[in-house]
């Protein structure tokens, strides 16, 4: 067997192994998309109900809550970037990071200082490599976020946000800690299996539509509306974060599925190409051997007839 055939055989083998891996990842990602979509669907009733309750509440309560009022002067803005924990998902993480970069650029132009919060190992690695300060990061759940993860993130953000309410001037307030005046989140919207786009959204201060079409019923409140609002608003922010995480996880799986699909297709193509090359190399070797034998036999025959 000629050396060339042996080399090609090795390449085919490695392409086949690669195809097995990418194919498996493609299948796993496909099932995860469906799961993430189901979770997104399952979280909708709660989100709708809490929005309805808040709307009713804001119509009745005097709205003077730090989470609801826009700050006079925005100095520091928190930016949460949702990326993936693992690679091999095409441009998923880098697209989200790019969107976050452009958002932070916009904030800087408006004279706001962006403060970075990162979800997912890929984002952490990106910013750590570039020596960009990360205020806080959370990793390990990008593919299957639970509500607890959203709550952890929410608590950190809300604390930083409410702290800032007392920072009267450019200096820190009594607690000597600079808080945040705005909260942004960059997550990847799941448009379809083929399209996922990173989008920025504001989660604080919140805007509640005070549409008064239709008379809202006169609610009784237990406890007082203001206390109720205090308890409800953080939960509302947590649900917003949870929705963003779940949607991002669906997008991540979709991006990975597509990346793995094209990797599998490429591997198939490579296998086919190498197989063709190997066959023709083998055939060439055989042809050469035959012609050598025939040539040798002819020579012997010629030599024999002369004797």
């Amino acid at each position, binding site marked *: 067997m000629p050396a060339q055939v042996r080399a090609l055989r090795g390449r085919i083998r490695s392409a086949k192994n690669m195809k097995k891996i990418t194919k498996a990842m493609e299948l796993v990602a496909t099932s995860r998309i469906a799961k993430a979509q189901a979770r997104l669907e399952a*979280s909708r009733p709660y989100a709708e109900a*809490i929005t309805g*309750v808040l709307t009713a509440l804001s119509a009745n309560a005097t709205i003077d809550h730090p989470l609801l009022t826009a700050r006079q002067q925005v100095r520091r803005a928190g930016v949460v970037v949702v990326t993936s924990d693992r690679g091999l998902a095409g441009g998923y993480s880098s697209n989200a990071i790019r969107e976050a970069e452009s958002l932070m650029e916009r904030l800087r132009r408006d004279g706001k200082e962006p403060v970075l919060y990162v979800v997912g190992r890929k984002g952490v690695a990106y910013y750590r490599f570039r020596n960009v300060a990360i205020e806080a990061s959370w990793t390990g759940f990008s593919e299957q976020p639970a509500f607890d993860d959203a709550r952890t993130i929410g608590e950190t953000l809300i604390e930083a946000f409410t702290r800032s309410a007392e920072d009267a001037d450019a200096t820190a307030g009594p607690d000597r800690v600079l808080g945040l005046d705005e909260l942004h989140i960059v997550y990847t919207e799941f448009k379809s299996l083929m399209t996922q786009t990173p989008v920025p959204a504001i989660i604080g201060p919140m805007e509640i539509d005070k549409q008064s079409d239709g008379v809202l019923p006169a609610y009784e409140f*237990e*406890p007082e509306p203001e206390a109720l609002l205090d*308890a*409800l608003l953080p939960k509302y922010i947590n649900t917003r974060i949870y929705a963003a995480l779940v949607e991002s996880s669906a997008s991540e799986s979709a991006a990975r599925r597509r990346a793995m699909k094209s990797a599998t297709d490429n591997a198939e193509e490579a296998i086919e190409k190498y197989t063709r090359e190997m066959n023709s190399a083998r055939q060439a070797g055989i042809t050469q051997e035959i012609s050598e034998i025939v040539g040798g036999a002819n020579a012997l025959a010629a030599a024999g007839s002369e004797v």
Partner: protein
Amino acid sequence: MAKQVHVELVAVEKKVWTGEAEMVVARTTEGEIGVLPGHAPLLGQLAEPGQVRIKLSGGEQVAYDVAGGFLSVTAEGVTILAEEAVPATAATH
């Protein structure tokens, strides 16, 4: 048969229970409350830890241990929002 009220118990990650009931019993931060059909609109924060009991027609009842819950009563029915809701272990009556 007595009038019924539509009840929805939704947790963050999924809808837990939905159906018609005769009465919903829960404890808000202000105290125990029972909601019958035709109750006035109400928004309440549930006490921690709290149990929500939904009484069905025929004397049966379902109970859930609810954390981080809110109760909303409107003309359409009762909605209980919960961060977490698990069936109560001692759900006997």
